[in-house]
């Protein structure tokens, strides 16, 4: 009787651990959240669509990657809750999307500065030309 009870308990325990949820690495989740926050702060959601960078459904590329990142992170959390070991890799996919959104936002800011600097140079040359006449 005792043996039977122990056996039932062991089977129940095995079943429980088999269905147990998987814990996503805390540092990776924090890193992901920081990247999403950075992308938003750098204006990833408000960048215009350009010829070089355009995302799905005509969305600006940075915004599209950020939306994908958030969606994939949610999927990763659902997978983890279901005990799916692929959850960690899915979170890495989400992280790569967030990194790309940050990169695109940074590039847009730098590109606009470069255009401004070029315009400044043209103005300076024009001014010098006028003055020397």
């Amino acid at each position, binding site marked *: 009787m005792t043996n039977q009870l122990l056996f039932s308990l062991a089977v129940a325990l095995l079943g429980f651990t088999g269905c147990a949820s998987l814990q996503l690495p805390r540092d990776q989740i924090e890193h992901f959240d920081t990247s999403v926050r950075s992308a938003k702060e750098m204006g990833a959601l408000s960048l215009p669509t350009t010829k070089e960078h355009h995302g799905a459904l005509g969305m600006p590329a940075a915004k599209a990657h950020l939306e994908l990142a958030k969606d994939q992170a949610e999927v990763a959390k659902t997978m983890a809750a279901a005990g799916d070991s692929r959850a960690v890799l899915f979170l890495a996919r989400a992280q790569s999307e967030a990194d790309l959104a940050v990169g695109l936002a940074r*590039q847009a800011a730098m590109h606009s500065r470069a255009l401004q*600097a070029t315009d400044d140079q043209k103005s300076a040359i024009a001014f010098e030309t006028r003055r020397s006449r």
Partner: protein
Amino acid sequence: MKTHHKNLILAVALAALTSACATVAPAQLVGVRDSFAAASAGLPGKLTPSALYDAKQVLDQANKEFETRGDTTTCRDYAYIAQNKVELAEVMAGTEQDRETIIDLARAGAVASNAQPGSLLSSAESR
């Protein structure tokens, strides 16, 4: 006897077909291999080699997964991440190129007529 031969030929053909299918890399993996090769030969290879190296690390994992287990979801996940990393290396190379433009212009004093001379240079260098 003839039926036996036919069956044998059919079995060999099926085996050949199966092995042929098993060795065809998924489109994602083929795509990222091409993207990586192009990026290595282009601007990212010169300006952002460390970002490209990050992409290579993940591409290697995708290739290894494909060699050992075939076209699995893990292989496709790695290929997906590698593709994003290659794109990031390209984006970072573009940023680097713009930064160099700003620094060159500022050094040449072309933007010195602005109210805050040198501000552009220092802000570009600090990023």
